[in-house]
């Protein structure tokens, strides 16, 4: 199989998977005991109102007709209206997504830097006490409940140290005095682009704690993966050869070994991206961060089913696309993957 055949096959597979994701989401709403029409009109509705809502929502049609309409609308970008905000779900998602992305991307960048450096260090110092301490640290990262870590950080950095704001995305006074012009929808980025320094400092300070919470799990995973694939890479003949030839340890570790160990690490970064998308649900709830997770949890608690479906499909789609990108990047970096 040539590399292009692999690319085509991989993209076709991703499309197929997205189709399946949409189908499962559709079926989930239809097979559950609660009646969407009853939810739509609220708890005090009369039976004829429910019947009317059922006709309005197209729920009286046969299942396969509903499915056809649902799929057609989905592709057209009509994801239905939120029962709670009464706005189109896709608009809502696009409104809330950038602030979550800002959180996730900064968290993953921090997690990757810390995870890779610590992972390389522990591989280098395998079997020493540093390795043991780091192992507790990385396993701790994947074992700690993010929502609990959030509360602990609030106690430490707000209540005890008075260093960082407890929650929210900006200080109300700063936001009024120096409003951020929305360009990307990511406050820190927008403030930076427009040179709005007071707002930039303020948003960045608000970003730190939720970002740390979200970074804990990916950091642990990336660190563990870096360690194990570095150990494997360092066992290779060419590394031993390079060491025998007197290549300095730092060059050896970061240039030669890490380059070859990075493939699996890249895959893991892709996987943790998806985890972080769901991780924001809890972190945003605690930090009152107005992002996709906040939108999702409020929708879930009010049984806003078009919004729940929309968020589910969006998160799954993001996950599929990131994994696709990672797989393709790896195929180009290491053509053996496409050929096997």
């Amino acid at each position, binding site marked *: 199989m040539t590399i292009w055949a692999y690319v085509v096959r991989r993209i076709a597979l991703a499309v197929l998977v997205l189709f399946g*994701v949409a189908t499962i989401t559709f079926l989930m709403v239809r097979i559950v005991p609660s009646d969407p029409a009853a939810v739509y009109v609220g708890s005090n509705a009369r039976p004829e109102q429910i019947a009317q809502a059922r006709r309005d929502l197209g729920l009286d049609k046969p299942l396969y007709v509903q499915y056809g309409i649902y799929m057609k609308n989905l592709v057209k970008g009509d994801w239905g209206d939120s029962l709670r905000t009464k706005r189109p779900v896709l608009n809502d998602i696009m409104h809330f997504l950038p602030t979550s992305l800002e959180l996730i991307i900064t968290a993953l960048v921090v997690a990757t830097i810390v995870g890779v450096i610590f992972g390389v260090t522990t591989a280098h110092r395998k079997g020493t006490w540093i390795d043991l301490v780091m192992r*507790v640290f990385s396993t701790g990262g994947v074992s700690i*409940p993010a929502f609990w870590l959030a509360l602990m950080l*609030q106690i430490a950095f707000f209540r005890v140290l008075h260093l960082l704001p407890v929650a929210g995305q900006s200080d109300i006074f700063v936001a009024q005095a120096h409003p951020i012009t929305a360009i990307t929808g990511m406050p820190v980025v927008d403030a930076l682009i427009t040179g709005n320094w007071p707002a930039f400092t303020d948003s960045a300070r608000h970003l730190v704690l939720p970002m740390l919470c979200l970074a804990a799990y990916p950091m642990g995973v990336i660190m563990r993966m870096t360690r194990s694939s570095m150990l494997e890479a360092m066992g290779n003949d060419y590394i031993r050869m390079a060491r025998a030839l007197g290549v300095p340890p730092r060059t050896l570790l970061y240039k030669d070994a890490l380059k070859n160990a990075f493939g699996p690490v890249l895959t893991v970064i892709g996987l943790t991206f998806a985890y972080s998308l769901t991780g924001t649900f809890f972190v945003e709830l605690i930090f009152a961060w107005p992002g996709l997770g906040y939108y999702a949890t409020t929708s879930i*608690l009010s049984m806003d089913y078009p919004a729940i479906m929309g968020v589910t499909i969006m998160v799954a789609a993001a996950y599929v696309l990131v994994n696709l990108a990672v797989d393709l990047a790896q195929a180009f970096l290491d053509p053996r993957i496409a050929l096997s």
Partner: protein
Amino acid sequence: MTTSSSLSDWRVRHQASLDEARYNARVFFKDKLAVVGLVIIVVTIAVAVLAPHIAPYPAQGRGDSNLKERFQAPSTHHLMGTDNQGRDILSRVIYGARIPLIISFTVTAVIVIIGVPLGGIAGYYGGRVDEVVMRITDVFLAFPSLILAITFVAFLGPSIRNVMIAIVVSWWPWYTRLVRGVAVSLRERPYVEAARTMGVRNLTIIWRHILPNAFGPVIVQMTLDIGTVILAAAALSFIGLGAQAPTAEWGLMISEGKDYILQQWWIGTFAGLAIFILVLAFNFVGDGLRDVLDPRSKR
């Protein structure tokens, strides 16, 4: 034949397996963190089983409120303080050990029962069976498991039973994929081929020759997943989709403590610490088991 001679007879015949088990145990117990993890798990199970006998206020552990003693800071009367209902937190942490253990053991067992045979069948038969099973698992794996679980419980309605169903639905494909990989690698091995030519039934081959080889990786994955399932179940309870008040459940307790966290920090702190330590323990044991049972995959 006396019992002792039959025992020594058994020993002779199983010498190799016994040596291997002894060797494995030595490798496992050399890993300090794995041993610490094992001790924590055993203690937690004991605490959960004996909860009515060791909890200082068993009735409060089960949910009775005691409004006279609300928001008491940790003291000799209440080692971990009391919550907004005046309940002793220590008793609730002790009772709270029951749900995560029951959920995680049940859920992983069910997942294995569904996922493992399916993976064995897909990998062994190959062809169209494999294609169909693996495309279905691909779709399920395309969902981040937690959001699939959250969506599922959101529609099914909040309860511990629904949390368990939701986690099973979103988790089984991992095992199917894991076991399928093993089955594919074994399908063409001479001993499997030999069994086939001798007319052994396919399902018997899968049961006797394929699945036992997947035992190691599956056990390792299960141990690591028990931790993840505990976290997922606690997370669902935390956002109000799992255990309902007044049940003592760690995720729910953190949620109850979250509004008071800056003043009465103890309400949510200890329950979270309990989750953290238990999950950490399962991960340490999982890592230790991996070195023993699945030595090819280094960590």
